């Protein structure tokens, strides 16, 4: 049995979710007989890692620092093997713009998009390009911060008048934002464990007003179905697309790929989460359970993969 450091909390906006994920992972690791050292990732992270000298670190951090390669880089430096994807893969996953460029370059389907930094608007007159963008993408347009994990800062612009406010909101979270064509379709999540796709989860909003993005994350406002009831061959196509994205971005261990199945049956890639949520309502554990993998087994597998 090993000494495992569970990294959780941190300073990101998803601190709360991470604390829940982390606590659950700790419980599982203890049941599996490991020695667990819980570390709330703060100013003393490196020192505490050196003190604890764990055999392996379970990264249960979400969002900035924990999911974007920062903590992974530190773990490399300290020489502690860790769960999930490596530094470069985390960087590509955490930045939706980098990920979408990679998808597009590789010929994988992803909704049409444009991305700008704040500087482009402030210093290069990018605002003058907005009408052309709006024409190319059609309304509604989804505006997102490039690097923000949860639903925070995601806005739907229904008309040109909504776009500047939506951009300002997205720039609250990151210096780079994404304007993306809104694709109507079924919202799917494919969790990947050790290079294999788990059963597909479908998110079905209960309310008609699917533009209220934040409301959909309230408890009870969205139903999750797993395995998703997709037609013959569709499940395979969705899973293959997800796996292609996972491989393309160089993921390791586990990840969750979010997609939209458009009206033509094409799975369009939205993003890849390098450290997917592990709370009791999170999608990856649900998918694992649907595949007959208990949470403890899931955590055990992820630890094994980190040490391999």
């Amino acid at each position, binding site marked *: 049995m090993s000494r495992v450091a569970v990294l959780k909390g941190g300073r990101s*906006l998803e601190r*709360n979710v991470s604390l829940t994920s982390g606590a*659950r992972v700790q419980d599982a690791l203890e049941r599996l007989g490991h020695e667990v050292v819980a570390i709330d990732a703060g100013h003393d992270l490196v020192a505490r890692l050196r003190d604890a000298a764990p055999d392996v670190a379970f990264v249960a951090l979400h969002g900035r620092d924990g999911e974007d390669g920062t903590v992974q880089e530190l773990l490399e430096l300290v020489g502690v093997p860790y769960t999930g994807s490596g530094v470069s893969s985390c960087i590509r996953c955490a930045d939706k713009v980098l990920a979408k460029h990679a998808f597009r370059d590789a010929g994988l389907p992803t909704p049409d998009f444009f991305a700008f930094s704040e500087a482009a608007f*402030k210093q290069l007159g990018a605002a003058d390009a907005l009408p052309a963008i709006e024409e190319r993408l059609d309304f509604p347009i989804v505006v997102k911060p490039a690097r923000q994990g*949860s639903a925070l800062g995601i806005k739907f612009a229904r008309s040109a008048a909504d776009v500047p406010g939506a*951009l*300002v*909101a997205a720039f*609250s979270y990151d210096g780079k934002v994404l304007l993306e064509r809104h694709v109507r379709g079924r919202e799917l999540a494919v969790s990947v464990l050790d290079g294999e796709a788990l059963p597909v989860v479908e998110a079905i909003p209960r309310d008609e007003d699917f533009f209220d993005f934040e409301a959909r994350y309230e408890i009870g406002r969205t139903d999750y179905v797993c395995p998703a009831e997709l037609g013959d061959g569709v499940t395979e196509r969705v899973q293959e697309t997800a796996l292609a994205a996972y491989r393309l971005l160089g993921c390791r261990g586990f990840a969750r790929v979010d997609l939209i199945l458009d009206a033509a049956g094409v799975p369009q890639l939205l993003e890849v989460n390098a450290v997917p949520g592990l709370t*009791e309502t999170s999608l990856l554990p649900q998918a694992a359970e649907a595949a007959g993998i208990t949470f403890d087994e899931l955590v055990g597998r992820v630890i094994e993969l980190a040490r391999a």
Partner: protein
Amino acid sequence: MSRSSKHPGRSARDLERYAGLFAQRTKVMTSSAMRDLMAITERPEVISLAGGLPDTSTFPADSYAAIMQRVAAESCARALQYGPTEGLAVVKRCIAEVMAEEGTAVDVDDVLVTTGGQQVIDLMCKTLIDPGDVIVAEAPTYPGAIPAFTSYQADVVQVGVDADGMRIDELEATLDRLERERRRPKFVYTVPTFQNPAGVTMSLPRRRRLVELAAERELLVLEDNPYGLLRYEGEPLPTLRSLDTEEFVVYLGTFSKILSPGVRLGWAAAPRPVLQKMNVGKQAVDLCSSSMTQCFVAAYFDSGRWQDYLGSLTAIYRRRRDTMLAALADCFPPESEWTRPQGGLFLWATLPDYLDTTDLLARALQENVAFVPGRAAFLDGRGGSEMRLNFSGVGEDEIREGVRRIGEVVREQVELYGTLTGRPAAPAAARRSEPGGAPANVVRMRRRAS
């Protein structure tokens, strides 16, 4: 694992394990994103203008020790014992003294001592609300009342507020509409004086009309008055209870803001039949409020210096309010406006409607400063470009620095919006604070259409 369980992979920390057991009323509707953001405001390096904490740092430690000693010497057994549900008679006399200070007479038999003012809100709902019953509240309303209302599955209808408090014309129209829809409002919840969160005070004509209206329609008014004695300027107004001749007002008071929230003592003064039901409700909740802190309060009031301490608190808060108002005038862009409270702990700022204060909070937290996004004070998604700022909880330097940081991010976003729309923002320093400040009775607050 030796225990048998239907879900062996699940631990005692898992919500899912108990999910099937939870009552409907536990599904309180708060957006998780907002909750996560608010959790971060508690980091120690953050200057928080988000809280609602009174300042307890100036309460003299030797007085505290002397009072405790006196309790130990004179009423040790009583302090350690259960007390009557309605509260100790000595405490009820203190309550009558506090209410008299605001010109409100009360018979001590009409008083129920509670565990904080918050318990009165809970007991009101427990006593009056069946699932689906309507509570009429202000828009914006006290954010802490919302979980109490929703946990009793009340249907909350919010009525607009302007510089003169709750809009009674809108209230009447709302009551008419509810009647047509055959929906039953049980009570109107208001913080008439130095309202939380907006900082505004209900005018005398509106107070009179509200009390009349309650009698005409036979519905109760819950007058939540935690801040009435924290007045920094202007003439005191009569409480709703003191205007109420027909007994339709339930009054909520608290020791939290005039002494200490740590004693967890508040009270209700209510019509006798309502009070009796609340008493039974309280028996089910906690039998009685803490005898220990009730003895503390009694001994404290007996020392006869509660008004002096209140005076010192008022002086501190007045300076902090003035500091915040000056800082806002210096640091917030001219497109924004805010209320100018004559007392209490909060003011309410309104930004241009294209700004979202929930997103702004995420940006502000990067600068280690926090406020309450306006949406927290509404149940219907309104308040998106508004914020509540507290000036009682931190010192003047921190207020100045906190407002400066918020002003910076607001200004940054206003400028960015200007760039994006091709309409550059007005020069930043357009409105410095005028010498002497605005006249005392000026309250900047947008009048809402509905």
